[in-house]
């Protein structure tokens, strides 16, 4: 199981209602359903939508940049966004919408400012290393249009009046309480649990 999924499963209580934005083939939704958590996904890729349907999962096909606008307010206990925020056209607009449709928001992403990334940028002098999702990605065709650091995201959350409940260093499965964040220099993957108060 993906390490970020493990944290999410521990974090969300039973009988919650969850929206997984960018749910791919529904792996996380299946795990949540097994824990008696009712989950729905949003996914752009139709083949992945079909594989969700085959598993009996609820999935909405569409572009998350516009699709989430159609969800009714206060519908979900948790909105989850893993490995997606950097590919969203306007992360601030999306988070503002999620604030309205869900009570809690969980956002996970790879820290673009970690030392190894910064060093490889310094050495190569190319943004490809910062923006890469897969090997075929170059700076001009990457989905990662908004690389961000842990510090960057913390600032955005606070700017949007979102409260940081906990953060996690995903690879070390370490939890940070009371708005503290993992090292911006060394943490590879981070998970934010934020809420709208």
């Amino acid at each position, binding site marked *: 199981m993906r390490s970020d999924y493990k944290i999410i499963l521990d974090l969300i209580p039973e009988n919650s*209602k969850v929206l997984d934005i960018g749910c791919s083939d529904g792996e996380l939704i299946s795990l949540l359903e097994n824990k008696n958590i009712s989950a*729905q996904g949003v996914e752009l890729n*139709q083949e992945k*939508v*079909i*594989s*969700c*349907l*085959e*598993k*009996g*999962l*609820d*999935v*909405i*096909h*569409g572009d998350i940049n516009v699709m989430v606008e*159609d*969800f*009714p307010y206060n*519908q979900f206990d948790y909105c989850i966004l893993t490995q997606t925020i950097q590919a969203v056209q306007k992360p601030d607009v999306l988070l503002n919408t999620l604030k309205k449709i869900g009570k809690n928001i969980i956002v996970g992403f790879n820290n673009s400012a970690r030392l190894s990334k910064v060093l490889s940028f310094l050495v190569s002098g190319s943004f490809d290393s910062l923006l890469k999702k897969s090997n075929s990605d170059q700076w001009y065709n990457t989905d990662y249009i908004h690389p961000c650091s842990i510090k960057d995201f913390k600032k955005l959350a606070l700017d949007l009046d979102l409260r940081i409940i906990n953060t996690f260093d995903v690879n070390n499965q370490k939890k940070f309480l009371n708005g503290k964040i993992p090292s911006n220099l060394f943490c590879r993957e981070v998970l934010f649990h934020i809420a709208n108060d």
Partner: protein
Amino acid sequence: MRKITDNSEYPGYLLKCQEELLLDSGKIISDFQVAYQTYGKLNSNKNNAILICHALTGDQFPAEESPITKKKGWWDLMVGPNRPIDTNKYFVICSNVLGGCVGTTGPNDINPKTNKIYGPDFPTITIRDMVRVQKILIDELGISKLLSVIGGSMGAMQVLQWAATYPESLKSIISIAGSLKHSAQNIAFDEAGRQSIMLDPNWDNGRYPEKNKKPENGLSVARMIAHITYLSEKAFQNKFGRNLQEKKDLSFGFGIDFQVESYLRYQGKSFVDRFDANSYLYMTRAMDYFDVSSEIQNNKNKIIQNGIRFLVLSFTSDWLFPTKESKEIVSLLNSVGSNVSFAEVVSDRGHDSFLLDEPQFFKVCDGFLKGIK
């Protein structure tokens, strides 16, 4: 009293009901019948039954060869052995709607009270009335829970009505190219079609059946108008462009110059042979009156308790029942907290895409049905 017999006029069966049916209009139909066809076998647990709801001009013959057109059934690509609605696995039921003209009681039948053809005396019916009659049929077949109810266009309206009115009687629905309510534009198109029929002198205030005539011109123009709405700008362009019909030069007259004109006229003419004008009036009216939003809201507890799974489907180029309207269905279903999935299929063939060979569309339906437990 209810009795099922073979249908002597068409393949399939007839459910004859000697009873009164109270309609939404407050009027009553006494003694009615339902013409239906089935495919596949009902299993011993009676839990593999799928009801298919046909669209405005459809009939009870989605699969195999149609006895009416002598061509493949209108949903032959969707329903049959190894098709998405696999008749090797599922027991498929499809009935002609109330007010129709392929065997189920409609305006061309005899009114038992007067022993004359109903004609314009047939009561105005609603989508809910159609579904009421389908529910009677499902009860008579001894099926307490349908695995799914599936339909496109006017069929999608019936499907949503089923979920709203009889949520305890089904496990899932697939609404294809549908809406919660008929839009103003769609009512406008329906009205243009109805006016075309009613302004034909042969319509004769709806009394034409007893006088042995038919408002063929009116019905044909109604069909031509409607047919334009079933396609897309691109579909017309790809199919015909500005190509001329069997000529090299414009005629400088009002005959058929363009291929698209010839095509439309053919669509109108061939429709007249297989459809009844009064039925067309009644069914378009039923669509106009359709608005299922509040009933879904009022019945939300039952919908959730029964764990109904919804799949809502739309096509990118459909401008008659555009994606926006399918998304409104999804929003409503989400707001009542039901289990809903949605997919938009890319197709440039307009509203009619649901009747055509659209492999992605079939894959989505197939996947959804496989996921129903």
